């Protein structure tokens, strides 16, 4: 409870709230898109690089491989559950349901940044390789959702997954940045970390606040536009689905033996929904899906839910769940 209040009063959450409020009031406050892109590059670079340095210090472990495999499995399975729930709960078309399912199977890098920010404020360490797990979880959900959509539509012409899509999705800029910085962290280890330390650590909280301000602005404008899609059923889904993802992740984390911090991060990844890599892929692979519905849910409902309620909750749960 205390954690929740402390989270609510964290600068991160408050800057997000500021953005949301400003957008709702239709203020002209905005972050230029190139600045938002710089902030995203910076966060991915820091997360990846720090993770790589941790792996360089601790070596390749069973946990790394097991968690990556578990992450890939989750990213494949969550869309199946999400699609099932959506077609049962709502009146969405099957292609819209599949598109939303892909968003929820994948992950949100800024939610990842937010949970690591909270953990470091609390002094809770987490496994460095979680950056690689995050990268591994970004794309399987896309292919999972495409298979679902194909089945639902009974479409059989053409290849199941067009080859150029495979390349476009796998070489998505955010994945390349995250994995690249991770690899560089492994390669340069402690020496690299020392060289970049002030850049990596001193700026992080401030840049994260600016980023969350921007996310608040974008989410607020998105809600303004997408309100019409927010039936009780789909809002229910957008709040329920994170719990399901987090629960599955908690189970797997316990089996693998992740630390408290690592469990919280893994739960958050599973609970988070993409709004960067997946929307672009859906425009290419499922153009009939309405992009606004998935985006409104993922950015307008699930992201704030995770930021404000989810993350402190997952951390609290991780404390009771994780192997001691």
């Amino acid at each position, binding site marked *: 409870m205390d954690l929740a209040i402390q989270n609510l009063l964290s600068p991160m959450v408050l800057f997000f709230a500021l953005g949301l409020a400003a957008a709702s009031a239709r203020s002209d406050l*905005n*972050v*230029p*898109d190139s600045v*938002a*892109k710089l*902030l*995203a590059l910076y966060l991915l670079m820091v997360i990846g690089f720090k993770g790589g340095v941790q792996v360089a210090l601790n070596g390749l472990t069973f946990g790394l491989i097991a968690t990556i495999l578990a992450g890939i499995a989750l990213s494949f399975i969550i869309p199946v559950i999400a699609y099932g729930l959506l077609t049962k709960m709502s009146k969405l078309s099957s292609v819209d349901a599949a598109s939303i399912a892909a968003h929820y199977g994948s992950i949100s890098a800024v939610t990842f940044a937010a949970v690591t920010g909270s953990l470091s404020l609390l002094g809770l360490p987490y496994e460095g390789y979680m950056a690689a797990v995050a990268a591994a979880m970004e794309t399987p959900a896309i292919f999972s959702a495409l298979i679902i959509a194909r089945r639902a539509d009974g479409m059989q012409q053409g290849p199941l997954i067009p080859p150029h899509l495979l390349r476009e999705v796998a070489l998505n800029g955010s994945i390349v940045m995250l994995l690249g910085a991770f690899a560089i962290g492994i390669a340069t280890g402690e020496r690299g970390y020392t060289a970049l330390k002030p850049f990596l650590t001193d700026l992080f909280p401030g840049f994260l606040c600016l980023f969350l301000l*921007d*996310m608040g*602005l*974008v989410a607020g*404008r998105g809600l303004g*536009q*997408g309100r019409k899609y927010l039936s009780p059923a789909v809002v229910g889904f957008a709040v329920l689905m994170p719990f399901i993802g987090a629960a599955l992740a908690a189970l797997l984390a316990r089996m693998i033996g992740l630390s408290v911090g690592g469990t919280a991060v893994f739960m958050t990844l599973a609970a988070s929904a993409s*709004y*960067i*890599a997946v*929307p*672009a892929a859906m*425009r*290419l692979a499922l*153009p*009939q899906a*309405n*992009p*606004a519905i998935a*985006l409104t849910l993922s950015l307008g409902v699930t992201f704030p839910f995770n930021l404000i309620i989810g993350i402190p909750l997952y951390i609290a749960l991780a404390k009771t769940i994780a192997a001691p």
Partner: protein
Amino acid sequence: METFPKTRIEITIEAPILSRVTQTLDSFPISGYSVLPVISGRGHDGSWSIAGQISDAGRMLMIICIVDPSKAEAILQAIFPIVQGQIGIVTTSDVRVIRQDAF
């Protein structure tokens, strides 16, 4: 000054599809094309803006391509199936150019 009649093709298309359109244009013997940014807009599904966007998935771009009128029809026919089913508008108009290059 002598000028030459050409067709100006203006394709306003969602960003993720850009490379599909340009690859199709590349398959024609034309001199090239230019891509202009669109920063906001409104469609049947509400308004959008690039402000604060990390990804370009939701934005539009405008491709401008000056071609010889004799090639316009074939280009439109090649682009139509790409644009159909995606978000986009294709217009053509008559212009005149001052250099008779291989448009």
